Each structure stands twice: as C-alpha cells, then as structure tokens.
C-alpha cells in the first residue's frame, strides 16, 4: 500500500494518540477538514495493509511492575529459525522478536527476543522457557541487560508530501 498526503496528515494527527472524546474519529476529522467517514475508511485501509499494526492502549509496563528486561539472543539453526522465531514471538512476555544476520565471529546469534519481567530473576527464568522451547535447534545463547539509556527519542514521522 502506498500512503498519500491525506493518510500522512491522519498519521501525523494521531501518532500522539486518539482524543479521549465520545467520537474520536470525528474529532480527528474536524482537525483535518475531513469527514468522519473518510478518516474511518483511511484508518481501516491502513490497518488492513499493516501500516497500522493495531489501534490500542499501550500499558506502561514499568508502572505495572515489569521493571526488568533483557535482550535475549540465540543462535538458532537457520532451517528452523523462522518457525521457532514465530513461536518465541508469540510468548506473552516477549515484546520484540526478530531474525537478524549474524556477525561472525564476534556475534553468532540470529534470533533476538526482548524479555520483560518483574525482576531480573524472573527474566532469567523466562529465558529458560525460551531455551526449552528452542531445544537442540539452539546452539548458543546470551542475554544483554541495558545498564544505561544513552539516548531515547520517539520515532516520529516527519511531515512531508506524498
């Protein structure tokens, strides 16, 4: 799907969040000089195409006690990596899961899974669950904990035409 200038205006208007009003899409439409029907149709099309992954509420996992997280990394047999990666990504405690290229010899890992828990000990236990799931297809593993945030900015779409 290619998104057009109007889609970009809708994205720009809603990437900070939907208004907490009884008719939030009508409100967005008013901001942009569009009709509610057009905003709904465009959001629906973007969601169907995957440009919008979901419209939802994101809990603050720190506020809810999930204060520990680790980037677990796994060296998984390439012939099984896609199948097993999908299973790891479906685990409720894994927020991000990717296949990435190895950087041999320093970096033998091709599957990355961010694990969230209430404590470092819980994260280590959950890591054990992933190891059990991967079984003999996994030839090595590690986990990297963040020790400092050096920079954090939101990924915001720059306003541009077309």
């Amino acid at each position: 799907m290619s998104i057009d200038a109007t889609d970009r205006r809708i994205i720009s208007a809603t990437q900070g969040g939907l208004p907490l009003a009884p008719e939030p899409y009508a409100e967005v439409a008013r901001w942009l000089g569009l009709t509610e029907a057009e905003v709904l149709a465009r959001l629906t099309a973007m969601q169907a195409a995957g440009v919008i992954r979901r419209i939802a509420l994101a809990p603050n996992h720190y506020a809810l006690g999930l204060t520990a997280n680790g980037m677990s990394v796994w060296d998984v047999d390439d012939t099984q990596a896609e199948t097993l990666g999908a299973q790891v990504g479906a685990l409720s405690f894994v927020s991000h899961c990717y296949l990435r290229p190895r950087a041999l010899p320093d970096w033998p890992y091709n599957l990355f899974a961010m694990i969230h828990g209430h404590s470092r000990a819980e994260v280590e236990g959950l890591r054990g669950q992933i190891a059990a799931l991967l079984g003999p297809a996994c030839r090595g593993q590690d986990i990297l904990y963040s020790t400092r945030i050096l920079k954090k900015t939101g990924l915001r779409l720059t306003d541009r035409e077309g």
Partner: protein
Amino acid sequence: MRRTPLATGALDATDRAILNALQTGFPLQPHPFAVAGAALGLDEATLIARIAALRDIGAITRFGPFFDAEAMGGAFCLCAMAVPADQFDRVAALVNAHAEVAHNYERSHALNMWFVLACEQPRDIAVVAQAIEAETGLPVLLFPKQKEFFIGFRVQA
C-alpha cells in the same frame, strides 16, 4: 514516561480489565468507547474517564494507532559497537550527535553500545554508519531486521 511501579492499590479491578482488554484492539467505529465499554460493562463516559485517569497516573504510555514505521517508508537498523571503557562517553556523544540515532543503550556485553538508526531512505543507513566509524575509529556492526515476529506481547495488569 513513568519508569517506576504504581503504588499497590492504585488500580482497581475495572482499571485492570480495561488495561487487559484494550491492549489487543480498539474499534474503528463512530462511537468506539461505547462499543469497547459494552464488552466491559461500562458506559461510554465512564470508559473515557477511566482511560483519562489511567493516562494521568502514568499507567498508559499511548492510546491510539500504532504505525509500522517501515510501512510508512522509513528505514531502520539496529547497530552495535564494542567501545573501550575509557572512550565510552566520547563515543556516546559522537553517536548521539547524529539525528538519525533514535535511541541508544549501554548493554552488558563486549558489544556494549546498541543503537537504532532511523533514516528516511534505506541507503542512508550505511552512510550514517560509515560516518560514525570514521568519527570514532571503531567498527559499527549492522543488524538489520530480516524477519519480525510481532504477535503476542501482553502486559497482565
């Protein structure tokens, strides 16, 4: 963004039900709060007030559409560097000075600096990585996403 847990008792059962239910999706309909509220036994005004209160206490980071940045035309790449301890702050400053560096974490590994490049065009990734290598004198390893498994994360409230 709040990075500390809420006090015990800050959320009641209704708050938890809202947090659990609306993580998965929100209706694309003219009165979405009425529709979503009906499934929770809440009327439209109550659900709106509850979400506003959850936002105000920092229990919610975002409420609305989640966009796939790549589907909108951007290019992203996870990068890592092994930075000697005595150069760490200098290198962090050089890396962070690039506007394309979206976030950057120190991590517990020989590869101790991990950052994400967010560029307008795919070809810009290599350009920025090479600039960082030239400025720092250190290799930048690129870990582009080959496949993303984006399915299941749920925070049990």
